[in-house]
C-alpha cells in the first residue's frame, strides 16, 4: 500500500539543490517545517547550501544523512537518471515537480518504482504535504491547514484555490497529494484509496480531477471495490472544453466519449461521490457536511 504520511521528522534531501528552483524551494520547505537534511548536485562544487551539506550522489547523501525522501528539482530530461540514483540509494519517497517528462521515461520510472517499492509522486506535481508537519514541493502555505479532509488532485493551481477557500472556512487537510497532470504518473488516485480508507486522521476525501485520461474512472472503481465508507467529494474541471483540444495537461485531452466530463461525473456519482460543478458549490457542500 502506498503510504504518503510523512511528518516533520522525515529526513528529506533535495536533488538539484544548487539550482535556482532548488535554492528557493529548499528555503520555503524548511520554513514550513520540512526536515531538509541535505542536497545532491552531481558534478557541482558546492559543499553546503542553506546550511545543509551537498553531496555528489544520493548514495553518499543517504549514508551521511539517513535521508528517506527526496524532492527532485531537476529538469524533465534529466529526471529519469536522477530517479535511478535515488532509488538505487534506497530512498523511499520521490517527489518530482518537473513538467514535461518524456512519457517513455515516465513508464521506465514507473516500473522502477513498482519493482523497488518506492513511493513516487509526480511528475508534473506541485508536491505533497501533511499540513502542520511537512511539505515536499511547492504547495503554498496559505492553502495548507491541518484537518480531516484527504485531498488529491491532478491540477496544482485548482487544488491551491480549493485548499485556500476551504482553509478560510476552517476546513483543513489530513494528507494532500498532488498526483500531477501527466498521463503516466507514479501515484494515481486509485492507488491512494486504500491509504485514505485506513488513515484514522482522514474523515473525508476530496478529489480534484479534470477531463481526459481515466484516473477518475479508475478511482471510482477502486472506491467501490474497497467499499470506501467515508464521504467523498469531487470537483471536475474542463466541462466546457472543446473536443479534441489539449488544455495544458498532457492528460486533459478528450477524444469522443472517452474521458469526457459526463463520463467521469457519471462514474463518480455511481460510486457515491458528490460531484460539484463550481468552487463555491464545493466549498459550501464540504463545509456543510464536515463542520
Amino acid at each position, binding site marked *: 500500500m502506498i503510504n504518503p504520511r510523512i511528518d516533520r521528522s522525515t529526513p528529506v534531501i533535495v536533488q538539484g539543490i544548487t539550482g535556482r*528552483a532548488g535554492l*528557493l524551494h529548499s528555503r*520555503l520547505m524548511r520554513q514550513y517545517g520540512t526536515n531538509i537534511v541535505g542536497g545532491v548536485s552531481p558534478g557541482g562544487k558546492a559543499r553546503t547550501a542553506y546550511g545543509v551539506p551537498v553531496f555528489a550522489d544520493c548514495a553518499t547523501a543517504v549514508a551521511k544523512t539517513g535521508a528517506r525522501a527526496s524532492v527532485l528539482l531537476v529538469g*524533465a*530530461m534529466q529526471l529519469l537518471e536522477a530517479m535511478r540514483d535515488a532509488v538505487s540509494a534506497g530512498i523511499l519517497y520521490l517527489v518530482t515537480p518537473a*513538467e*514535461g*517528462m*518524456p*512519457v*517513455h521515461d515516465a*513508464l*521506465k520510472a*514507473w*516500473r522502477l518504482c513498482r519493482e523497488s517499492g518506492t513511493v513516487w509522486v509526480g511528475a508534473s506535481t*506541485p508536491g505533497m504535504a501533511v499540513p502542520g508537519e511537512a511539505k515536499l514541493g*511547492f*504547495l*503554498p502555505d*496559505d492553502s495548507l491547514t491541518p484537518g480531516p479532509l484527504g485531498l488529491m*488532485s*491532478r*491540477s*496544482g*493551481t*485548482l*487544488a*491551491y*484555490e480549493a485548499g*485556500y477557500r476551504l482553509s478560510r472556512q476552517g476546513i483543513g487537510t489530513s494528507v494532500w497529494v498532488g498526483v500531477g497532470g501527466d*498521463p*503516466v504518473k507514479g501515484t*494515481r488516485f486509485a492507488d491512494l484509496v486504500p491509504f485514505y480508507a485506513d488513515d484514522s486522521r482522514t474523515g473525508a476525501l476530496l478529489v*480534484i480531477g*479534470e*477531463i481526459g*485520461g*481515466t484516473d477518475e474512472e*479508475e478511482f471510482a472503481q477502486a472506491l467501490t471495490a474497497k467499499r470506501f465508507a467515508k464521504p467523498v467529494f469531487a*470537483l471536475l*474541471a*474542463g*466541462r*466546457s*472544453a*472543446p473536443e*479534441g*483540444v*489539449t*488544455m*495544458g*495537461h*498532457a*492528460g*486533459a485531452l478528450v477524444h*469522443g466519449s472517452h474521458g469526457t466530463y459526463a463520463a467521469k461525473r457519471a462514474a463518480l456519482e455511481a460510486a457515491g461521490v458528490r460531484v460539484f*460543478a*463550481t*468552487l*463555491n458549490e464545493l466549498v459550501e457542500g464540504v463545509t456543510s457536511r464536515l463542520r
Partner: protein
Amino acid sequence: MYLLEHDAKELLAARGIPVPAGSLIENADAASTTALPPGPWMVKGQIATGGRGKAGLIRKAATPWEVSEQARAIFQAAPKGRTVESVRVEQRIDAAHEVYIGFLLDAAAGGVRVMLSASGGMDIEQVPRDRIQNEVAEPDVRSITECVRRLAQKLPADIGPAARDVGERLAHAFLELEALLIEVNPLFVLDGGRWLAGDARVVTDDNALPRQRELESLLRARAAAYPDVARKHEHGFDYVVVDTDGEIGLLTTGAGLSMMLIDELRAAGLKSYNFLDIRTGGLRGETRRLTQVLRWIGEGKNVKVLLVNIFAGITDLGELSRLLVEALAAAPQLKVPVVARLVGYGLSTAREVLAAAGIALHTDLDAALIAVRSHLER
C-alpha cells in the same frame, strides 16, 4: 503530436514498414501537375482525426482526371469546421486480408497495450470487443514482439507470418519515435503473405521532442500542419482559442484552475475567448511571454475585458504586476479594461504597482467576476 497519415507513413517507411506508393498535394490545382504513383488511386484528405472515410475524406479514383476532381471535393470539405490542407494520393491495393494492429502506451497498466484483430479496415471502435485481442507488454522490443507473436497464433494461418513480421518492425518504430500510439488499420496482407500499411495513425510524445531530432525537423518544416504543437514547442506554454466570439480574454496560469474558470464563466453565461496556462515560473523576469499572449488575445474581435487570475503559490506578485504593466504597454492592440485577481506573495507591492496603472486588484474571485460583468454591460 498526432501526425498526419502522410507524415506517419514516411516515418514508418523509413523504418522498414512498406506503405503504398503515394504523393502529397497541397492544393486542388497541384493534383494535375504532381507526379502520381501508378493507378488506380485512393485520394485521402490529410487531417489528424479518425473517421475520415465517413466524413468523405477518403475517395477512390480510376483516372488522373478523377484524382483531380476528388481532391478538389476533399479540399472543399470542412469536417468539424476544420480545413483540409493537404491530400495524399496513393496507389490502391487489393488485399486478401485487412488486419488491425495497434500499440498504445497504456498509462494505467504501466506498459504497452498490444492490440490485434483480423477484422481491420473499419473504425476499430465499431469492431466487437471480443474480436480484438489485446495484452499488455513491457516497453521493450522483445516483450512487444513476443506479445504480437502470441496473439498472432489465434489469427488465420495465412495472416500470422505477416503479423509477426510487422509486429517486430512496429515495435522498433514505437520505441524509437517515443510514440504514445501507433495504429496500422488496415494492414493489407496480400496473397503470398506480402504486407503493407494501408493507413497509419501515429501519436508521438511532445515532451520528447527536444531529443527526437527527426520529429523536431518535421515540425519545423511543416509548422502550418501542426499549429498548436508548433506554438507550444516555440513558446513553452499552452494557449488555445476556445471561442472566437468570446468576450473575456484570460491571463491565467495552471491548467486545472484555468479550465475551471472557463467552466464557471460559461455557467454564469459569460464567454471566454481563450484558455491559457502561462506558467508564471517560466517568465524568468521577462515580458516576452506576456506581451505575446496579450497580442494574441488582442486578435479576438469581441474581447471586451481582460481577466487576470493568478494563484501561483510561489510567484512574486509584485514582480508579476510590474511585468504585466510593461507588457500591456507593449501590446497596444489590446485596448480593453483589465480586472486582476491575485493571491500569494507580494500582494501589497502588487496593489501599488497595479493602482499606479489604474488597475483594481481583487483577492476574491467572485468580486473580480462582478467587476468583469460590469465592464461587459457597459
